[in-house]
């Protein structure tokens, strides 16, 4: 072996002045499976995006096979043999396996020689352990795990030397994950360098040769997997445990004010969820992507039409199979997709603040202009928004202020009893984050039931009065606020059964 295949040398990158990756270096040899670990915001995705040509580094260089590589675009990266298998699949369900394999292949001949292509596809599928699949089969008929494997086979078919897998198993079952691991080992055995990004620590230790841990954009440690344990990894990832925002209030003892959820299920996403959430308390759902934490909130907000179970609020059954029904029962939802499913970006701040209460701002079907203005102004003050920006489109605000608008929209409404938030501070800077945490604490103190889902340990520990860890669509355990971060992390990543 003549030197490492991939050398990452002092890579750095900032966004809007905030450093996301600071002088990160590591190397990956041919045939090596190298894990990148760290919890959300640690800089993993930024490193992956720089390696795959989606993002230019501010400083530092990437050396492939002894030559400094200028990865200007994904196409260039692909030509240099870097393949990325994303957490969001890029296979096209409406095309066949074979068509997907050749899709976007820059070396594909102009006129496809079908028989040769089929033979090559067959070889690759066999190599992935997909001997049951036919090249002519539609991808739509495959399971998620099989699609993931097709994606890896596609990367190989394009003569990749470096294969990056970003959370490939986040949405897969145990058995499907096994097949992906077997495939990844085969890829490495062919002499590729594999970079594996995952939240699931036991699988990282089982699969990978070397582990690099990132925290706050810096490399904390690089060590052989054999020298590490899950506990030691967690200690590296966490650093110091944050302190939480204490509450002075006792939980509302009146159970009629509570949100009572019994056996909430969403086919394929949430196995079973039961919780009595009392007014005045903040409930934190701790779970990684695919754990079901986000689905609990979406089901309660009426966005999972196939959800089943029973939900009671103020002694009335909540019609949670439609968003209108959930809203009418007094449930407000703050999505994790602020742009796509949250704010009306072209509309002014004031219009967004009153968007969901227009029917309460006047008599009958009319909106009273004076009352609307006063409401918007008082909400802006409540949410800590600059009053001179009320007429500006929300689009022009910073991420933090946008999120304040999104949360503020549901505050100060006597008809809202429950506030659900999915990743309440995604894309928000540190200052905005503290302000939003304060808002949520105030909302709970004002007598609301607050339930949020997050993948960020600090946030869970800072805000949660009750923390429920979730994995594979089920609750792993329930903890009082101020629980041990390492215990939560272990629940989220490996569940209870593992040692």
């Amino acid at each position, binding site marked *: 072996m003549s030197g490492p295949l991939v050398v990452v040398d002092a890579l750095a990158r900032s*966004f*809007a002045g*905030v450093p*996301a990756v600071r002088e990160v270096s590591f190397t990956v040899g041919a045939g090596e499976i190298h894990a990148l670990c760290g919890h*959300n*915001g640690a800089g993993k*995705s*930024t490193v992956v995006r720089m390696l795959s040509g989606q993002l230019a580094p501010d400083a530092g260089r990437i050396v492939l096979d002894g030559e400094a590589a200028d990865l200007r675009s994904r196409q260039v990266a692909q030509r240099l043999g870097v393949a990325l298998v994303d957490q969001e699949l890029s296979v096209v369900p409406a095309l066949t396996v074979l068509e997907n394999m050749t899709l976007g292949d820059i070396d594909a001949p102009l006129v496809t020689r079908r028989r040769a292509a089929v033979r090559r596809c067959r070889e690759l599928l066999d190599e992935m352990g997909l001997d049951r699949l036919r090249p002519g089969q539609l991808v739509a008929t495959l399971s998620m795990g099989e699609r993931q494997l097709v994606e890896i086979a596609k990367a190989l078919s394009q003569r990749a030397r470096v294969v990056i897998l970003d959370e490939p198993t986040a949405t897969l079952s145990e058995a499907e994950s096994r097949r992906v691991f077997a495939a990844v080992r085969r890829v490495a055995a062919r002499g590729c360098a594999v970079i594996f990004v995952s939240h699931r620590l036991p699988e990282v230790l089982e699969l990978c040769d070397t582990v690099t841990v990132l925290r706050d954009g810096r490399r904390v440690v690089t060590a052989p997997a054999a020298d590490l344990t899950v506990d030691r990894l967690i200690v590296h990832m966490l650093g110091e445990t944050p302190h939480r925002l204490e509450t002075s209030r006792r939980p509302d003892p009146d159970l009629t004010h509570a949100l009572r959820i019994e056996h909430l299920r969403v086919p394929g996403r949430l196995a079973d969820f039961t919780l009595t959430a009392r007014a005045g308390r903040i409930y934190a759902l701790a779970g990684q992507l695919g754990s079901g934490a986000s689905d609990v909130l979406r089901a309660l*907000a*009426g*966005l999972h039409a196939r959800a089943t179970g029973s939900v009671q609020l103020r002694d009335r059954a909540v019609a949670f199979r439609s*968003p*209108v029904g*959930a*809203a*009418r029962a007094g*449930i*407000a*939802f703050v*999505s994790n997709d*602020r*742009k*796509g*499913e*949250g*704010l*009306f*970006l*072209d*509309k002014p701040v004031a219009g967004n603040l009153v*968007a*969901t209460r*227009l*029917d309460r*701002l*006047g008599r009958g*079907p*009319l*909106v009273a*202009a004076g009352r609307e203005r006063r409401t918007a102004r008082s909400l802006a003050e409540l949410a800590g928004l600059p009053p*001179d*920006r009320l007429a*500006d489109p929300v*689009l*022009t*605000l*910073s*991420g933090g*202020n*946008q999120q304040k608008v999104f949360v503020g*929209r549901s505050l100060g409404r006597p008809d809202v009893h429950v506030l659900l938030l999915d990743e309440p501070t*995604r*894309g928000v*800077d540190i200052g905005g984050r503290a302000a939003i945490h304060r808002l949520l604490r105030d909302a709970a103190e004002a007598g609301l039931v607050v339930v949020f889902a997050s993948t960020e340990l600090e946030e869970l520990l800072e805000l949660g009065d009750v923390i429920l860890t979730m994995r594979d669509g089920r609750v792993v355990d329930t903890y009082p606020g101020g629980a041990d971060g390492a215990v939560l992390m272990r629940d989220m990543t490996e569940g209870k059964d593992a040692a």
Partner: protein
Amino acid sequence: MMSLLTAPPAAAVRARRARPGRLAVALAVLVVVLLPVAVTTERFLTLGNARAILASAALVGITAIGATLVMIAGSAVSMAASQTATVVAMVFLATLDRGLTVATLLALLTGVVVTAVQGLAVGYWEANPIVLTIAAGFAIGGGAIWFSGGTPVSAAAGGYEILNATPLGLPLAVYVLLVLAVLAEWILRRTTAGRQLYLVGENRAAARAAGLPVGRVTVVAWAFFGLCLAVTGVFLASFNTSATTNLAGTLTLDAIAAVLVGGTAIAGGKGSALRTLGGALLISVISDVLLLRGYETGVQILVKGLLVLAVVVLVHLRGRR
């Protein structure tokens, strides 16, 4: 970390907002070009001609006012306007023997129901409005042929003449257009449903997740559109005194042109009824000038097409972010 939105400085935002919009600039240029042409056109500056301009804008304008609400709600356009107006005209003429009031009410009901049902499919079942209304257009047009047996439907009785009255020298339809434009503007600005229309049109997924009544609001918009179509149909019937299956001609596309020239966003979320009124009048003025200067119909249609194209390019295609 990924989606950090960097905000432009507040001063820059204000400067941008203080500048006149592209539509205003486009209109100013148009007026500067058009004014000398119009003034030097023989017989343009006469009372009779002003009446002719208003009269020719009236019917397309009424339909366009309704189409504005549908477009703001994000349902793009309806391709079934002509057919609906035709069926309404036939119902009106065929039922005139029961009196003008009954005939008018039946006609309005027909327009509202036929169109609101399409709104139901778009609002609640997320049907693609363009595909749906093309299909509906065929169905309604087929219904019209079936109903009429392919021959012109003539008035079952008199009584419709009052609709052709011209108080102060202007057709009744012009007054109805103005009333409907003001009514639509009031609905859009002051009522809960109107305000929610803009929200649904700008970001349907966000409106849905917020628990806004997306379906109901969409149906309201389409029902109002149906009312406007029916009014157009009734005036068409009384003006022509009989209805053939292609009575409404190019109404569908003319109405869309008026809405677009008025600057309502084809993707929804932005627009106003009064601007549509302006769009209808502008198209009417240009057609009038061309007519007076002796250009053929083909040239008139060509210029209308170029005008819509120019506005769409200037206002609508400036990449939404």
